[in-house]
């Protein structure tokens, strides 16, 4: 059985309540840290652990913390990005719903390390029932002295708020999240300056993903070395993977980074193989925005080595033959799947969620959706396929925030690996897989 950090006690009834969580050793890291560690030592510990941001980009968390501007006397803010809305990703909801205290414990540790006196959990608007759970947990933490003034007599004050968004994917982008939290329209800001210098209310701010923060208590309890001992290469620790699609056992799995992809898909401990004994066709390994890979490339790299569930191994080969670990939304498709239709669904999502601020993304996402709609319904031409490639190339890298890239990558990769299927749609003037 793999090491469990996030899902360890998730079967325990009533884990969301303070008593049960505390009985299982919860909040011990706060007692230990506030007594024995200075804020900078906590940052060092996180740096040493090798913990990477779990929201998708995989940027080392400790490094991100160290960019925080400490030269001003302005207040600092620590924000938890709970705006999980990437198609295929549903791991954060699980933590918030079943184990909210672990997130709160992580928030206290992070806020202490960064010197934040006010912190926010920005939660996706659709998850209103999770907001209620978290707010109840926050109230319990206040009542037991882990939040509020003078936490455990250490002299450290922290107020924690949970704030719901209004249902926009773009507010998961950290600067759009900050704008939204300030009560403005959720448009991403133009960077630089980065939030570590000019963030919430123009003050230094760090934004981290739910899963990243939920890892902090374990790191402080067991030490950075123990955390760094899990995993492979520069991919340390465990990762929640939300597996969905045509597998026998969809769900959320905690894996040690470095698990072979083949084992993850076929072993009974995890996905349990493809449904009905079908053949694997393609996998989107890290949420809808990462490049799709055909079966042969997801199981083995272009060099013929087995592909592992880690940041480096999944990225091997660049975008030509590789992909990204992303947020851990693992979407498996079997041979009955139409790649064009799947791509149309993704493109419709990005068209719907583009904030409309910068022209390539605003106009390009809609254009790609309309062309894909045409191809899928038998009205496409061969020229349309090349046009799609050229649009995706012109969006990528030319936008304010990464949503443009996220919309362009699936299109470019689907055509790169499954061009034949697009051409079949054009030749047959219908979807070859439709009945």
């Amino acid at each position: 059985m793999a090491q469990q950090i996030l899902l360890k006690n998730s079967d325990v009834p009533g884990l969301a309540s303070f008593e049960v969580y505390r009985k299982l050793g919860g909040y011990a890291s706060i007692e230990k840290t506030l007594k024995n560690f200075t804020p900078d030592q906590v940052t060092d510990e996180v740096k040493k652990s090798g913990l990477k941001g779990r929201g998708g980009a995989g940027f080392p968390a400790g490094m991100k913390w160290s960019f925080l501007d400490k030269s001003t006397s302005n207040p600092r803010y620590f924000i938890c990005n709970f705006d999980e809305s990437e198609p295929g990703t549903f791991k954060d909801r699980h933590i918030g719903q079943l184990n909210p205290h672990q997130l709160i414990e992580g928030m206290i540790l992070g806020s202490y390390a960064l010197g934040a006196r006010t912190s926010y959990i920005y939660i996706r608007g659709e998850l209103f029932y999770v907001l209620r759970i978290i707010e109840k947990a926050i109230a319990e933490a206040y009542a037991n002295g882990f939040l509020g003034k003078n936490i455990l007599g250490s002299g450290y004050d922290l107020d924690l708020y949970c704030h719901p968004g209004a249902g926009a994917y773009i507010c998961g982008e950290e600067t759009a999240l900050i704008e939204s939290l300030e009560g403005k329209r959720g448009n991403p800001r133009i960077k630089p300056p980065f939030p570590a210098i000019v963030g919430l209310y123009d003050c230094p701010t760090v934004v981290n993903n739910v899963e990243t923060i939920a890892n902090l208590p374990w790191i402080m309890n067991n030490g950075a070395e123990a955390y760094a001992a899990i995993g492979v290469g520069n991919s340390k620790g465990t990762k929640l993977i939300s597996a969905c699609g045509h597998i026998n056992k969809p769900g959320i799995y905690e894996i040690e980074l470095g698990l072979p992809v083949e084992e993850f898909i076929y072993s009974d401990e995890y996905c349990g193989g493809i449904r009905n004994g079908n053949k694997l066709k393609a996998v989107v390994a890290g949420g809808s925005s990462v490049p799709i890979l055909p079966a042969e490339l997801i199981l083995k790299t272009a060099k013929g080595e087995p592909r592992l569930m880690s940041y480096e191994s999944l990225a091997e080969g660049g975008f030509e033959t590789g992909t990204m670990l992303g947020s851990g939304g693992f979407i498996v498709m079997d041979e009955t799947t139409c790649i064009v239709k799947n791509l149309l669904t993704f493109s419709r999502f990005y068209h719907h969620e583009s904030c409309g601020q910068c022209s390539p993304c605003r106009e390009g996402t809609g254009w790609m959706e309309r062309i894909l709609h045409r191809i899928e319904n038998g009205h496409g031409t061969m020229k349309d396929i090349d046009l799609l490639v050229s649009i995706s190339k012109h969006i990528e890298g030319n936008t304010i925030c990464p949503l443009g890239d996220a919309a362009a990558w699936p299109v470019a990769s689907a055509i790169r690996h499954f061009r034949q299927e697009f051409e079949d749609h054009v030749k047959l003037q219908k979807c070859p897989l439709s009945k």
Partner: protein
Amino acid sequence: MSLVKVTIDQIEVEVEAGTTILNAARIIGGGVVPPAMCYYSKLEGSGGKCRTCLVKVAQGSAKDPRPMPKLVPSCRTLVQDGMVVQNITSPEVMEARKAITEFLLINHPLDCPVCDQAGECHLQDLSYDHGLADTQTVEDRRTFAPIDIGDKIKLHMNRCILCYRCVMVADQLTDQRVHGVLGRGDHCEISTHILKAVDNDFSGNMIDVCPVGALTDKTFRFKSRVWFTKPFDAHRECTKCSGKVVLWKKGDEILRVTGRKNKYGELEEFICNDCRFEHKEPNDWQIEGPRKIERHSVIGQNHYEKL
């Protein structure tokens, strides 16, 4: 103020630290100036949205000569000492600009023949310079019905390129925000919230900052093509603004009053609605002389000075 050296398209220029690449290019002038559809020097926070001014930074600075990984918006990127920028000398930039022009046009109605802005439209200029000769789209464009923003301004949302300039004008002019953007993505819409009119003495400046024909002057609509009117600098005593304007005359009749714009289409000063909409009699104004329009080719062809 310390000076920094920056090279744009192999032309070296010394500018004050804290200048943007775009403004450094404007100091050089001529062909190396990137087009700007959303940046407006007098509007705080403008720029970065339209992406037409993307340039390539081949060398970040003398200290850190690494190139920047992506094309950067020149209107929001500050120059560093020793920075090397490529604009028209970079095929990558020119390709991106061509693509952005196409993006801006795929939902634009191209109704120039009936649009009041034609002849002084920045999108027209941009597509003459960087547009394709034909279209690659066959789909329907998004459409909206024209609405009134106040009693003097007409909004044709179909033509809008969402540069946010008018929103920023409204933001800077009034404390009570009534004008903004509704919706998301390509179904975004400029609107006075719930069709409430913008009631402000300076709201007319929204017309002048609009780079396209989305916001037009209802007192001038369909009166004349702009290239048939002759611009004159003029002024009057005004208690609200400087009173310095441009009159657009056809014969002796004043058809339109606008603010004075520089060669990048930016207003020198905001003028009040009183001057703009209410004073169209020749004896309201002291005429200073003909105004030279450098930027817009169509109007620039009118050699009216000799008349």
